[in-house]
């Protein structure tokens, strides 16, 4: 752990990424306390107020207000929570699915492996956004469906990496000796192989997180993700598009938020990949 932190501080890019990610998580956990105003409170008198930095008055909006007078800073803060919950759940679900399938495929081999890997290939024959679109078109847009779709688009990468790792672990001495000692398949998979796969899986999860945040905000932007009145960065951006000529702050700040998070997660992920396992550099 100490070595980990030491290396992290030494790498400026990795450190910047880590700071972005920690800030993001902290802000989304503390969202209700941190948000200066109620993110859902409509105030038509103050609609489309431009950003001000004065510290005094009641009508003080550091990042301005939107078309119905909601405070943009508060909405970005509250939107971070939605983004984090959706992205984290989707990556966890997709990860669990992908890792289990990858474990089974790599460990048992044979026809079961062929079927699983074939499925992964097949799914990749549809571009992810379109896959998400066709599922949302049927299930209808909602938070739960959004998470399901994002998880479904993400499992393949986990499955591939896990399978690759398992293939090399399967014949290692500690696995063979566990087998010789009479351990069952489940015990070997979960006690001996899974812990050794997790490092690679964590690296994939970080990089997946960035992808999921972008896909989530893209779907919300298209009106197919997080539904109003909940604040979502993608949705805020879409709403602000109509006012781009008169009120640039509506669509600019949510975009900055997305870029910072994705950049941070990417930098942290790249750094973690190099730190833990340089041979994974083909992951993306």
């Amino acid at each position, binding site marked *: 752990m100490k070595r980990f932190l030491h290396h992290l501080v030494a790498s400026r890019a990795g450190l910047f990424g880590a700071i972005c990610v920690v800030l993001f998580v902290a802000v989304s956990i503390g969202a209700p306390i941190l948000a200066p105003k109620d993110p859902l409170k409509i105030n038509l008198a103050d609609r489309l107020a431009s950003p001000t930095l004065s510290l005094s008055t009641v009508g003080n909006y550091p990042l301005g207000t939107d078309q119905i007078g909601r405070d943009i800073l508060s909405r970005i803060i509250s939107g971070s929570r939605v983004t984090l919950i959706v992205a984290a759940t989707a990556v966890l679900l997709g990860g669990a699915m992908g890792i289990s399938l990858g474990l089974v495929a790599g460990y048992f081999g044979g026809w079961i492996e062929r079927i699983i890997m074939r499925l992964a290939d097949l799914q990749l024959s549809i*571009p992810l956004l379109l896959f998400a679109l066709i599922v949302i078109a049927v299930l209808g847009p909602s938070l739960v469906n959004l998470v399901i779709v994002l998880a479904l688009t993400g499992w393949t990468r986990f499955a591939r990496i896990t399978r690759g790792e398992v293939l090399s672990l399967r014949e290692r001495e500690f696995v063979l000796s566990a087998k010789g000692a009479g351990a069952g398949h489940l015990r070997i998979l979960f006690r001996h192989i899974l812990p050794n796969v997790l490092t690679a899986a964590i690296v994939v999860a970080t990089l997946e997180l960035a992808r999921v945040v972008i896909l989530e905000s893209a779907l919300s932007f298209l009106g197919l993700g997080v539904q109003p009145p909940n604040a979502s960065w993608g949705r805020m951006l879409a709403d602000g598009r109509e006012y*781009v000529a008169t009120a640039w702050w509506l669509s600019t700040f949510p975009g900055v938020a997305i870029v910072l998070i994705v950049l941070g997660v990417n930098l942290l992920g790249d750094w973690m990949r190099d730190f833990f396992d340089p041979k994974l550099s083909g992951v993306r």
Partner: protein
Amino acid sequence: MSRYVLFRLGEALISVWGLLTIIFVAARLTGDPALLMLPIGSTEAQLAEFRHQMGFDRPLWEQYVTFLINAVQGDFGESLLHQRPAMEVVLERFPATLQLALTALVMGAVIGLVTGFVAALKRGTILELLAMTLALLGQATPIFWLGVVLILVFAVQLGWLPAGGYGTLAHLVLPAITLALFISASIARLLRSSMIEILKENYIRTAFAKGLIIRRIHMHHTARNALIPVVTMLGILAGELLSGAVVAETIYSWPGVGSLIILAVQSKDFPVVQAGVAIISLNFILINLVVDLTYGLLDPRIRIER
């Protein structure tokens, strides 16, 4: 070689079959496609008639086979909104998407290759730092935000270009740049890292030791080999390009397949969604097939491995 071609062709055919199966399964996710396709508030009798008419009351395997046979012929049913074959509606929009995607691909490749090349050769300079910071930012910038920002700057503030629409070359510029910048970031990063790897190789050192002209070394030895991973990535890029086109078309009201799909999703015109996704994904499969075949030509090792 012909075995490899056959193998790859077979693989592409399986992908197409898988694609159609996913589309079929997706349509039955809710259990009753009739509810999905008919407007809300339709009577039970209307629903029953529609089910019978569409064959939804048949056994599932029979529906599946019928769907496959129809789909292979390009028949995804009637568009509920346009009252004509869904595929016809989609194909009308296809040239616009193709025009946008191809322009973006060429622009993106040029920008990405130049940036990556410069960054790799000017290591440790401010130029590399600048190029790579831009590339990192480019990868983190969602395409829809880039689109909105470009509209804000070039259409609203400067008034140089139209904010959306279709027709003249000026309409093409912003959507194409949006997509191009997005893919050029990945190209630049990949080319830079593969160039740096190759510059460490012995044959490059030998070339330098022989006293070859530096430009010649870079053109003939470094760049040529560094391009191989970029070519492989074209398949992945095609996916990003096609997905990105869906978003870019929506932002710039570009009348392509992408904006059509989004509209169809919103108006529950399911046959058009199916036909649109099928056409775009089919292109994706085709591009990947072509990339793999050319790649096999470029690098004999690939063929032997198979």
